[in-house]
């Protein structure tokens, strides 16, 4: 009995609660990034290797606009729009010509794009990390920590963006077009839906979501050309664990994995905490390869 009590006393409740909040915050940003990725895969079978770079470029555009206007929200909106346009341009030039070819060629093409974008950023902005200022400072007390309000706002905004997009999908003509194209590309065409343009539009949306995540995440870490790599890796894990093409699944998986990693970082270093996500991936592949949260394996 004493041993149980001792064990219960030794659990670092305050740290766990803090990490829960951290996990949810990171999870929501990851969800925003992964949503774009899973959307793109679900509708056009493209694994967008350059997704992390769109996240990174979004952050950089945010830096530039912040420097020019000093307004965080303007930076967020402009960055989202700019990178969405860039995404559309990329899809038109590098992915449309590959329709009908072996789907693995799109992996190669987007991999090439990611290399070009990364080095472009390195060239334009240099290796030194930049910073985005939070739109507001201000803390509240969470145990022994001063927890910034801003982090909660990020989580809320990410959820709002995803929620807004979900509403868009459920109502309105374009939402129907996107859902129809995702379910049956051929029949959608036969119904007069301009599928090639739906693809471009969805890619742009995915890119915009990645960019928004980049700007929201910017104040938490430094913005540098390599930031996309870690995120794209995590996003891929999330998409596989959540079930490829499954929007709800990838959101759930994002939060699940981020929470686990946050808890793990109580005991190990952050660099080692990433192993958690790898372990989850391996277990998912072994036991539920269609996705952890997918109810019935197809």
């Amino acid at each position, binding site marked *: 009995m004493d041993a149980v009590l001792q064990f219960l006393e030794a659990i670092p409740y305050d740290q766990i609660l803090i990490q829960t909040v951290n996990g949810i915050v990171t999870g929501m940003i990851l969800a925003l990034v992964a949503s774009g990725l899973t959307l793109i895969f679900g509708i056009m079978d493209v694994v967008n290797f350059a997704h992390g770079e769109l996240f990174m470029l979004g952050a950089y555009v945010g830096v530039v606009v912040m420097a020019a206007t000093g307004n965080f929200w303007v930076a967020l909106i402009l960055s989202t729009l700019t990178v969405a346009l860039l995404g559309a341009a990329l899809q038109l030039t590098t992915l449309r010509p590959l329709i009908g070819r072996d789907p693995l060629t799109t992996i190669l093409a987007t991999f090439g794009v990611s290399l070009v974008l990364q080095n472009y950023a390195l060239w334009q902005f240099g290796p030194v990390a930049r910073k985005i200022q939070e739109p507001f400072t201000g803390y509240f007390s969470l145990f022994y920590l001063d927890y910034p309000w801003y982090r909660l706002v990020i989580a809320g905004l990410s959820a709002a963006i995803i929620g807004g997009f979900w509403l868009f999908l459920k109502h309105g*003509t374009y939402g129907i077009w996107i*859902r129809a194209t995702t379910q049956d590309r051929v029949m*959608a*065409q*036969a*119904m*007069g839906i301009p599928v*090639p343009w739906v693809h471009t539009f969805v890619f742009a949306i995915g890119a915009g979501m990645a960019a928004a995540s980049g700007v929201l995440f910017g104040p938490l870490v430094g913005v540098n050309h390599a930031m996309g790599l870690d995120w794209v890796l995590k996003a891929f894990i999330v998409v596989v664990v959540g079930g490829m093409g499954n929007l709800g699944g990838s959101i759930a998986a994002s939060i699940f994995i981020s929470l686990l990693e946050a808890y793990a970082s109580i005991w190990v270093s952050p660099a080692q905490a990433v192993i958690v996500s790898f372990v989850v991936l391996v277990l998912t592949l072994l036991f539920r390869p269609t996705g952890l949260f997918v109810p019935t394996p197809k």
Partner: protein
Amino acid sequence: MSAAEPRDPLVAVENIHTYYGKSHILHGVSLQVGRGEVVGLLGRNGVGKSTTLKTIMGLVHPHEGRIMLAGKPVTSLPAHKLARLGIGYVPEDRRVFRLLTVMENLRTGLDRHGVTDARKQALLDKVFAYFPVLAERRNQAGGTLSGGEQQMLAIARAMMLEPKIILLDEPTEGLMPRMVSQIRQIIEALHREGVAILLVEQNVPLTLAASERVYIMEKGTVRHHAAASELKVDDAVIHQYLGV
């Protein structure tokens, strides 16, 4: 050929050769459908009837030959443009959008530029009058409908495009006899409205009853062409090509 092909056809298929990968499926298919005509396309399984429809719809492109719509060549146009130009398609396995509601399925064809709300409502009313069960189930997901109901939805969906011609691929397959006669009635109603129909079917009596002219395919090409009335009398031809 004793049945006369229309002089100014709505759809003219001229000597098309279609491949799936390396397989040569259509070896020079030619046929025509006049405005408002109901034309049947018969043949055993695997002769290329569905492929012919898909080629007309622009879902596959022929290596050789032409497709003409109202006198204009449309061979290389993508399917979504052809749908907008007035070709409706009801595929062999219905292919309703399973996760969209009945209403949303209809909207994939209904939501078009330049169609007034009044006209949209009129279209919906018409289709619900033809298929009352769809009105009942309008907020249900397409995948929860029975086979017969899905067939009705697939036809209703194509009607939303206000097409000049509907390509019907085996609409009565797997349906109970009661539904088969319902399909027959729909075809007649569409014909009365002036919509042309190219009907691919395994059900020979239905095809002969509903069509004015019939083409018979074998091994990827059209082997016989006659008025339906003739074939009703001369069933030796039917036996020869269909073994029925």
